[in-house]
């Protein structure tokens, strides 16, 4: 999944490293349609650029 859809660093254009997922319970109140019913919150991916250190997040795919 992450290997086929890498985030690209907006600062330097490098492929970012997908290193974490975070479950956001507060976001569930704001975006109830985005809640993963098995996990009970909105799952976000966390990516970091190995070249410049820029961090990026997106909703888990």
């Amino acid at each position, binding site marked *: 999944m*992450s290997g086929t859809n890498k985030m690209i660093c907006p600062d330097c254009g490098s492929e970012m*490293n*997908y*290193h*974490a*997922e*975070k479950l*956001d319970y*507060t*976001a569930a109140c*704001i975006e109830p349609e985005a809640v993963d019913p098995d996990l009970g919150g909105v799952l*976000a991916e*966390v990516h*970091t*650029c*190995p*070249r*410049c*250190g820029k*961090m990026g*997040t997106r909703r888990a795919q």
Partner: protein
Amino acid sequence: MTTLRPLFIPVILGTPRQGRMSEPVATFILEEIAKRDGIETTLIDIRTLSFPVTDAGEAIKDSQFSATMMRADALILVVPEYNHGYPGLLKHVLDTNLKEYIHKAVGICGVSAGGFGGTRVIENLLPVMRELGLVTIFWDGNFSNARTLFDTASKVLDPAYLKRTDKFLKELVWMAKVLRYGRENVPRE
């Protein structure tokens, strides 16, 4: 090369109160970490931030504070112990971000008027740090009897604090380096 970029480790002064004794502690920690090669730092005084109190979390994000958290490799919290707990405003400020903290190191300096060096506020903060995605280190800063720790020029009077702070910062920097390497190079399964 990633190793050539300096680590960015801000110090957060975690109380807005008048007469706060955490301020000279934060200044001391800031000076000590700024002396190290390969480290950039800045002081974030929560008194200077203006988050509304009628909402919370990401709904009241401050773009500059979030950018600083996103850029940080580690955090140092300087936190007074108020009735065994942490300042509510500090929690309010920290809660405005979440994903920005993931896989980053945090070291906590507890400050107290009594002799326990803020150990109870540090213990109370640990589960909060964990939920925020921060990685706590096993060295703490414990600043007891805060009113008598510094002279009028904010110089620490007990030299033992220099050695203790050195150990604390060395562990934090090590963890910050390891976690940066992991964030940038080790993919999750």
